[in-house]
């Protein structure tokens, strides 16, 4: 029964909501709205689970003084500090036009830190391109030429130096790239449909986890 009941729930839910998409009746739409609310509630619980698991993992690291435990301490301070600031500010970044502590953490810590992480990518991409973007084979050479044309065609300086690069890069993106992407998307979607059917009809059961029957 411990196995059969989840399989039954999965099958009923899967078939019901696959059918729901094709039934534009208000009752059917209402059912979808209710279920999306359930999803939001489950998502909230998943968040609690995730945060508590993160806390536990890093608490162990700090207690045992494992390598890099100082970073775990910073993480703890960051999470606790932000939660306290958020609770005190009632989740608002500003009140009556003045910035709260939570707003300060957001604007002057999170925004610059995330921006920096993204900006660093440009440096690493350049370094990686220099080290590994080599015409080792015919296929690699084609990829290299296409990349250079697209990179030139996407910036004004490239278009100024090689006027045709703009149109060629548009063609590469619109025709070659779009057709290959579409083929990949169709393949992935067919795989997803097949996997969904396997889950709905109980063929694929790995989502139930291990354990005794």
């Amino acid at each position, binding site marked *: 029964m411990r196995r059969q009941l989840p399989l039954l729930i999965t099958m009923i839910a899967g078939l019901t909501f696959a059918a729901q998409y094709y039934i534009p009746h208000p009752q059917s*739409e*209402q059912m*979808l*709205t209710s279920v*999306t*609310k359930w*999803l*939001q509630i489950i*998502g*909230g619980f998943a968040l609690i689970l995730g945060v508590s698991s993160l806390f536990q993992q890093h608490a162990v690291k700090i207690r045992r003084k494992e390598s890099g435990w100082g970073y775990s301490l910073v993480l703890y301070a960051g999470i606790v500090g932000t939660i306290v600031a958020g609770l005190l500010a009632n989740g608002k*970044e500003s009140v009556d036009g003045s910035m709260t502590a939570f*707003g300060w953490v*957001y*604007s002057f810590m*999170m*925004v*610059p*830190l*995330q*921006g920096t*992480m*993204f*900006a660093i990518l*440009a*440096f690493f*991409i*350049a*370094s990686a*391109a*220099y*080290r590994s*973007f*080599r*015409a080792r084979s015919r296929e690699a050479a084609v990829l*290299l030429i296409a*990349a*250079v044309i697209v*990179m*030139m065609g*996407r*910036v*004004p*300086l*490239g*278009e*100024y130096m090689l006027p045709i690069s*703009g149109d060629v890069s*548009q063609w590469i*993106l*619109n025709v070659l*790239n*779009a057709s290959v*992407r*579409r083929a990949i*998307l169709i393949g992935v979607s067919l795989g997803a449909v097949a996997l969904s059917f396997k889950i709905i009809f109980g063929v694929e059961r790995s989502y139930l986890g291990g354990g005794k029957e």
Partner: protein
Amino acid sequence: MSFSERMLKIDRRIIFVVIGLCTLLPLLYPVGLPIKISPEVRSVYDYMESLPPHSVFLLSIDFDPASKPELHPQAVALLRHAFRKDLRVVAMTLWVSGTGMAEQLVTQMAQEAGKENGKDYVFLGWSPGGSAVIINMGQDLYTAFPSDYGGRATKGLPVLDGVYSLKDVTYAVSLGAGVPGVEAWYVFGKDKYKFELAGGCTGVMAPGLYPLLRSGQINGLIGGLRGAAEYESLIGQKGRAVAGMDAQSATHLAIIVLVVICNLFYFSLRRQAKLQSQRSS
């Protein structure tokens, strides 16, 4: 170790300095090269231009500060255009970490245009559920967002007069940096509730969205900083994106030059190895 070998194993810090200079110098000394408008950005602009005043324009700011450099200028340009056209702006976000940034952005743009909160625009904020929020909005906007970001009841707001669900939205643009983003807005929004949709995304994501564009699933696409610069040029208000294009031009060129140099050394090494093996045999 030969010169070519040494050059192939060059210290990465030298490359970092080159890229740093290529970014910094054009920002300090801008050149201002002309920007060619692509058809996908023009179609977003043209559709916005074709909307009559007081049409409902939904802007979903689905990114966080990490993608701010590319997507923020897109949002600024779109909001400027929407406010200039006297559209009713309904802004929201599906990314909780982007809520504060989105609120600041919408408020700033509205103040610049002299628009009134609740009458000309509303920022709904964030609601949990990701893609499920889009479905909820498609059923009933007031259930998904009973109050706006400021805590005011959304029901009765003049800006939402006659708007009950996504079916009443004239044009929606999702500026997405990942999931949920443009694709979620198409699958759970446009496809189900039938409204016109366009997308905006980071430069690296743009190639992945071209199939949606080509099939008409989205009517336009603003890709990366280049797309933002094109939109700024179209509305005639050049901003951060246009200023950043010189820096992007220089870094693209630097990367191309680096790749070409690396390949020259690579082929020179291969030739040396070939000659050596011929001599030894």
